[in-house]
């Protein structure tokens, strides 16, 4: 609390214009880098508005919006109807949804792994409850050098991350769980780090987190369908099968400042930042 006051003092004390409006923005870890980049750029556009961005996960942001402690909640999954009802009950206001960008969920492996593409069904066989693929050789007889017994090491996320929930729904539908026994790391960054160091591993994360030490595989909807690599282009035209919308939510009709900010996020300048951060700008006109 004290630290907050000091920060507030610094902000108010140093600016010439002493009427800075603070907008609280919290939620998804997938979105946090992008939201941060936007907030920084927006300071140049509108110096009298400060956007304070923090992460914590989609669930955290939504919970904060329901409790009325933030102005904007970031989420990498759509808000559930129950959550919207709860927010309405708490604040008496309808939730307003903004699609601020798109994200392709990449499935990636160690560079030594010879697999180039997987079907949704194969991914489900690896990750889904009851799925029988426990060795790489169960998938078209793939042999991974440096991987003992060809065992598949599943890298996943903690069960209430937005990425986890979207991945589950996209791969398994709404009525099937992910298999227990995966390595449930608590960040996309950690997932990438682990797969980079583990020849047997396979993982998933937002496309923006990919680096040259892991290799994203192409995904095909069904066997025989074209195998699509996750790229900006394939995410925009929706040919990549596991891409999702990224959301920002406000409670009720947003205030003038928040509204301006939300509009600005769809401007050309903001869209360039989106692309630079590794995400896909939202389709225009929504």
């Amino acid at each position: 609390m004290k630290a907050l006051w000091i920060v507030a003092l610094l902000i108010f004390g140093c600016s010439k214009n002493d009427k800075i409006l603070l907008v609280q923005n919290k939620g998804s870890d997938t979105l946090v880098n992008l939201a941060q980049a936007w907030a920084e750029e927006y300071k140049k556009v509108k110096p009298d508005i400060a956007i304070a961005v923090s992460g914590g996960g989609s669930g955290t942001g939504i919970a904060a919006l329901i409790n009325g402690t933030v102005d904007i909640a970031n989420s990498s999954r759509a808000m559930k109807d129950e959550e919207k009802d709860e927010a309405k009950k708490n604040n008496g206001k309808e939730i307003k949804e903004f699609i601020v960008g798109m994200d392709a969920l990449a499935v990636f492996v160690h560079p030594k792994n010879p697999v180039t593409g997987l079907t949704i069904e194969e991914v489900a066989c690896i990750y889904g409850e009851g799925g029988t693929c426990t060795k790489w050789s169960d998938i078209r007889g793939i042999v991974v050098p440096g991987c003992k017994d060809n065992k598949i090491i599943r890298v996943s996320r903690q069960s209430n991350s937005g990425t986890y929930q979207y991945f589950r729904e996209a791969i398994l539908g709404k009525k099937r769980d992910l298999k227990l026994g995966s390595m449930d790391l608590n960040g996309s960054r950690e997932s990438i780090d682990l797969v980079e160091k583990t020849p047997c591993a396979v993982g998933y994360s937002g496309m923006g987190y990919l680096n040259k030490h892991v290799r994203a595989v192409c995904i095909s909807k069904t066997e025989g369908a074209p195998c699509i690599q996750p790229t900006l282009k394939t995410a925009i035209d929706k040919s990549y099968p596991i891409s999702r919308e990224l959301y920002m939510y406000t409670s009720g009709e947003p205030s003038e400042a928040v509204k301006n900010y939300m509009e600005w996020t769809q401007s050309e300048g903001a869209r360039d930042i989106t692309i630079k951060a590794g995400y896909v700008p939202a389709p225009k006109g929504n």
Partner: protein
Amino acid sequence: MELNMTETTQSKMEWRTKKAVKPKSEKIIEFIIKAGGLSSIVLIGAILFFILKESLPFLIGAFDFKEFFFSPEWYPASVVKIRYGILALLVGTVLVTVISMLIAVPLGLACAFYISEFCSPNLREVYKILIEFLAAIPSVVWGFIAIMMINPMIINLFNEPIGLNILNASLILALMSLPLIVSVGEDALRAVPETYREAAEAMGATKWEVATRVLLPAAKNGLMAAALLGVGRALGETMAVLMATGHSIQIPNSIFEPGRTLTATIAAELGESPKGGEHYQALFAIGLVLFILSFMVNLTADYLIRGRKK
């Protein structure tokens, strides 16, 4: 005789009443110290109350004793059937704690003996600073060491499919609790009066004999406290084990298989579970289990130390 007795008690009482008249400043200081002592009891009570309060709706609601303690299926976000079984997590916690202590206690106590008894005073200062520095490394950094260094090392050395496992977490935890064990152990050895050493050496005992036959029995309670503090450290560590165990819900068949601990589960899931929801309450029930577990460790420690004193 009787008269004598009453006289002595009387004089004792007088002495007491005399002592009771104290300057104000002393009273204030006494009060502060008392409040300090009481605060730890109040705090523990408050923590227990808080954990109980948050977990109670779960304990009287969805809680199923058999499932909770004997099912390895922790599925708080399942779309099919939500299950709260902590067996796998409990096994993970116990395994990691025990194995890390098997490594850290002998190593830590040996190190304490070396620093306190065998090395030169100059070197001692260097070692102490180095070991204290080890304690200053944040646990997230240990976690990254586990993923980026120990993980590939285990994969290559033991030819295993994955290096994030019980062994990795035990190694990291051992390293993390070493500084505590060493410095408390060293203090315990330093507390043994110098005359003990001198007497033993005068009897012609070698340094080794002094250490094993004189210092070890004399500092036993302190050394045990050092070891048990290490156990507490290992039991409660969160971030590093989250990363080093692989955070995987399964009962490990060997030290080369990944697992998951109670603390790491709370750390990873509490932030994103809606406050007051069933999952949130279940996590607090895990907190209660941890509380009881560490309470039992401390009680055993207390019992052991008292038992030896008799």
